[in-house]
């Protein structure tokens, strides 16, 4: 509709978002991206394309800059150099509200206001769609209802968020991002602090959003097996630089894990899904050969 920007590079397989103009592919890209905290270079000269319409997982060892990269992708961090572009437009040149209508974020440690109910929290997701003095519209209510339903939090709507379990709380926060009604959803380690069951709940929900609602998802993950299972596209970072990128089956192998994580392992097909599964070697085997 408002898109008049030419997209420099197109991922041929990326399906365009429904009802959007041809240039709206929800593709995020970085060009020569430099990210710093003070004098410390966290990410240096990163060129990256995150395909639209796909689930991308960003993985890497601790302090490799993956969360920092996600902050830059969502404009929480201003690059020291280079650009981040959405469909070819520098996100720092987009109005804040316009960007917030394209891109939602689940931060790693969101602040839950005291005694806020699930519904009140989710309603805040409509902020970028509202104007001063404009009343709550039917579209706003519909978006909230659908977000609650999709995340299975409809029954919890009247409950205070700070009284929910970790898994329920995470779903409520995802509902907020869904109510924002954006084509892109970015999640910073959405499974941290959750037990296995709730980790899978959250990842299944993300997969569903992608499959059924056509959202483009970018998430930072810790677990390589989960990343390989749930992502179409894997971005592997080491020391703020790109170590590998591509389909999990293509990039994830024993050499990569040794090089990036400094762990000797075998990569076998996941018996359930056939996606790569990282199995570290025994302690004895790991300590012997590598010099």
């Amino acid at each position, binding site marked *: 509709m408002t898109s008049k920007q030419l997209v420099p590079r197109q991922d041929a397989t990326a399906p365009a978002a429904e009802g959007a103009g041809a240039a709206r592919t929800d593709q995020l890209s970085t060009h020569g991206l430099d990210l710093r905290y003070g004098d410390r270079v966290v990410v240096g000269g990163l060129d990256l394309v995150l395909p639209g319409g796909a689930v991308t997982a960003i993985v890497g060892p601790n302090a490799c800059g993956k969360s920092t990269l996600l902050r830059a992708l969502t404009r929480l961090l201003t690059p020291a150099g280079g650009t981040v572009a959405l469909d070819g437009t520098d996100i720092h040149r987009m109005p804040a509200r316009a960007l917030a209508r394209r891109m939602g974020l689940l931060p790693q440690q969101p*602040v839950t206001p005291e005694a806020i109910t699930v519904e009140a929290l989710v309603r805040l997701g409509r902020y970028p769609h509202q104007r001063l003095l404009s009343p709550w519209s039917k579209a706003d209510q519909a978006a909230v209802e659908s977000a609650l339903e999709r995340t299975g939090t409809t029954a919890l709507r009247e409950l205070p968020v700070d009284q929910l379990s970790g898994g329920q709380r995470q779903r409520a926060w995802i509902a907020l991002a869904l109510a924002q009604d954006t084509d892109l959803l970015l999640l910073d380690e959405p499974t941290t602090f959750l037990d296995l069951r709730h980790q899978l709940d959250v990842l299944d929900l993300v997969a569903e959003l992608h499959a059924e609602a056509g959202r483009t998802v970018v998430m930072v993950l810790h677990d390589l097996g989960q990343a390989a299972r749930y992502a179409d596209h894997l971005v592997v970072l080491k020391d703020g630089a790109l170590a590998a990128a591509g389909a999990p089956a293509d990039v994830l192998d024993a050499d990569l894990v040794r090089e990036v994580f400094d762990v000797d392992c075998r990569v076998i097909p996941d018996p359930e899904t056939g996606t790569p599964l990282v199995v570290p070697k025994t302690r004895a085997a790991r300590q012997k050969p590598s010099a």
Partner: protein
Amino acid sequence: MSESAPGVTASSPPVSARRIPLLALGVGVLTLCAALSLALGARAVPLSTVVDALFGDAHGRDALVVSGLRLPRTLVGLAVGGALGVAGAVAQGVTRNPLASPTTLGINAGAGFAVVVAIYALGLTRPVEYIWFAFAGAVGAMFFALTLARRSGDIDPVRLALGGTVLQLVLLSWTSAVMLASERTLDEARFWLAGSLSERPLDVLYPVLPTLVLGLVIALAVAPALNALALGDDSAQALGVPVARIRLAGAVAVALLAGSAVAVAGPIAFIGLAAPHLVRPLLGGDHRLLVPGCLIAGPILLLAADVLGRVVIRPSELEVGIVSAFLGAPLLALLARKVAR
């Protein structure tokens, strides 16, 4: 996995359904406080005489006391209380700190110091003459606190609360130093420094009306953004809130409102702190309700404290700043317990 911050919306569901009756109740209580403020004092006046004095043609001493002294005092109380209540709500929203208030941001101490210096250096003797010194001191202190809290272009909420508290302590000690050095200054300033609504003609209020209105308008305008700000800076920014700009606008609103209030009535603590905590359990933490709610709750608290101060040691009276501090201290203790939990 998440910290707590002053909230949005209380637990019981139909806040929206309770809104209208609560608003009516608030206005009712406020009217009662105003009526008491007109009727009670060193000399109690029957309500019928109060009504006559306001709307009819009553004469005599009682009528004169009501229309000449207590009416201005009540109107000043309404304005100052409303300003302090709203300033408190915005200060807590901007800093995401339930213990923030105009006092903890250094505003009252800044005004106090400026007034004491003006009395010392310029030989001022009447509260009317203090107005602009107090306002300038309040705004100056607030923006110094903001400067202390600045980090990479944004205001850090924790630094703001800490910096404001430190600034407050420094200014208080300087104020004491000036007063100890000059007995005349001590004599002139001590009643003003207690914070009082007495002997404030309406002329004191007029100069600050524009700043009061402007502050209120800004506070109402940033209220929706403060709801998003309660989710943390990252979430707020991801929702399209210009975090740094909203925080600055909120700080300006607090400076204008609290600066005007202290200019008129002297430093009055606790009203700004207490009003939001009184309103939140009733209306929830949605700032679009909280700000108007504090506009009503602030004057209720201030007028109630003022009336109380007038009747406890009749025929003399206790300054409203002393009464509110006396009543507010236990509240602060209670709050600190709740926050620590």
